[in-house]
C-alpha cells in the first residue's frame, strides 16, 4: 500500500478526507491520483489539469524525492512509499 499525505489546503475543499488514513494501491503516481479521485470525486482536477499535467504550482513528493514526470505522473511508487501532495511555496 502507498500512504498519501495531503496538504491541509486540500482538506478545506474535501473535508471528508481529513483524519482519514489514506492508503491506496498504486504502481505510479498517476495511479495514486486516480485512486484519490475514486475516494473524493473532483480532487484529481485540483491536482492536475484536464491534460493530466501536474498543475504548475502543485508538487508531489515520493518520500523526499520530487516527482519528475510532471506531464504524465509516470513515476513509479512501491509498497511502503509515502506520497506527499502539496502546493508549491512560491514566494510570500
Amino acid at each position, binding site marked *: 500500500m502507498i500512504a498519501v499525505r495531503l496538504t491541509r489546503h*486540500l482538506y478545506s475543499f474535501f473535508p471528508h478526507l481529513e483524519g482519514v488514513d489514506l492508503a491506496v494501491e498504486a504502481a505510479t503516481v498517476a495511479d495514486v491520483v486516480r485512486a484519490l479521485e475514486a475516494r473524493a470525486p*473532483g480532487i484529481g482536477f*485540483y491536482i492536475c489539469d*484536464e*491534460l493530466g499535467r501536474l*498543475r*504548475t504550482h502543485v508538487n508531489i513528493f515520493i518520500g523526499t524525492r520530487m516527482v519528475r514526470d510532471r506531464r504524465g505522473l509516470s513515476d513509479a511508487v512501491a509498497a511502503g512509499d509515502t506520497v506527499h501532495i502539496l502546493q508549491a511555496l512560491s514566494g510570500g
Partner: protein
Amino acid sequence: MAARILVGTRKGTFIVEKSAAGLWQPRLVGHAGTGVNFVARDPYTGRLWALLGHGHWGAKLSISDDEGATWADAPSQIKYPEGARYIAQDMYEDAASEYGVGWRISTKPAALAKLWIIGFGPGGSVYVGTIPGGLFVSRDGGAHFELNRPLWNHESRGGDLFSGEGTGETKWFGTPASEGGDFAPGIHSIVVDPRNPQRVLVAVSTAGVIETLDGGQTWHSRNKGMILDHTPEPEAEWGHDTHFIELSPGDPDHVWQQNHVGVYYSADGAATWRKVSRPEQGVHFGFPITAHPTRGRTAWVVPGRSDQQRMTIDGGLFVARTEDGGETWQALRNGLPQSCAYDVVYRHALANAGDVVTFGSTTGNLYISEDGGDGWQAVAHNLPPIYSVRFA
C-alpha cells in the same frame, strides 16, 4: 427596487443587501481566500454561480442553491475535450537572433486557464466563456457542459484543429487577463437575445464581437464600423479589442460596447457600430459598460485615462451616462471622490438595475447610486479587489 448585489472579489464572494433601515451592507458569503472572477444568478433557476480561480488548484465552477448560504463545486466542471488545440503566438528567448528573441506560431493543447463570464438562457441554457477562447454550453442547467466546436473551430482562428492542422493562421490575439500568464484569447461577454435565445453574441479579447443566429451552429463577426485606429489595417474584420458588451434587455436592438479604442453603440443589434466616444469629456477608454434594462439609448461607463495609464483622470473618479445613444454624456461625480482617487474598475464590475447603479474597484471600494448615477454613496472601502458586481 433591486436590493441585492453579488460581488466577486480577489478574496471571496460577497452579497450586498439593503437593510430595513435603508443601509447597504456587504457580507462575505463564501470562497474566503479564493479569487472569484464573476458571480451571477441564473434567473431561470435561481441558482447562484461563482467562477473561481484558485491560485494553485485551477479554475472551478461553484454553485449555491440556497441564495449563497452554502456553496459547493459544481458536479460538472469545465474541461477542454481531448484533442482541443489552438494556435498560439509566443515570443521566446533566441540567442541566435540578432534581437535575442524569436516569434513563434504553434498549436497548443488547450487547458483551462480562467473562467471569465457566465450567461444564461431559457430552457436550461448556461454559457461559460473561458481563457483560452472557449465557449462552453450546457442545455441542462449546468449538469453537463460541452465546448462549442463551431466557434472553437472557426475559420478566423485557423479552422478545425481536432482533425488536422487547419490553416495555421489565427486572427484571434491574446489577453493578459489569463491567470496562468499565457497570452491567449478570452471570451468575456455573453449576451443572449431575450427575444430569440438562438441568437447569442459573444465578445473576445482580442478578436471582437461574434454572433450566432442558430444556437451556436454557425458564427459570424459583428465588427462593422469598429476602427482599429492604432494598427496598419484599421477596418480589419478581426483583431478588435472589445472590453465588454451589453444590450438593453427590454430594447435589445441597442447594444453597447466599451472597446480599447473607445465607446461604441449599435442601434441595429450589433450589425453596425458607431463610435460615440467624447475624449474631450474623458469618455473614451475604460473597461466596463452597462445598458439600461428598458431604455436602449441609456448607458453608463466608468472612464479611465488612456490605455497607457489606465487610471482615473486627474485622480477624480466619475461615471459617465448617456441617455441619447451616445450623442451627449454627463459626468456624474456627486458623492464620488474627486482627489487622490485612483480606483480602477474592471469590465464586469459595473451593473445597473435601472435607477440603481453600482460599481466596484480594484482598491476595494463599492459605490451605489439609487438615482441613476446622479448621486453616489460608498458602501464599502476595504473589500478585496473587486472583479464583478451583478444584481440578483
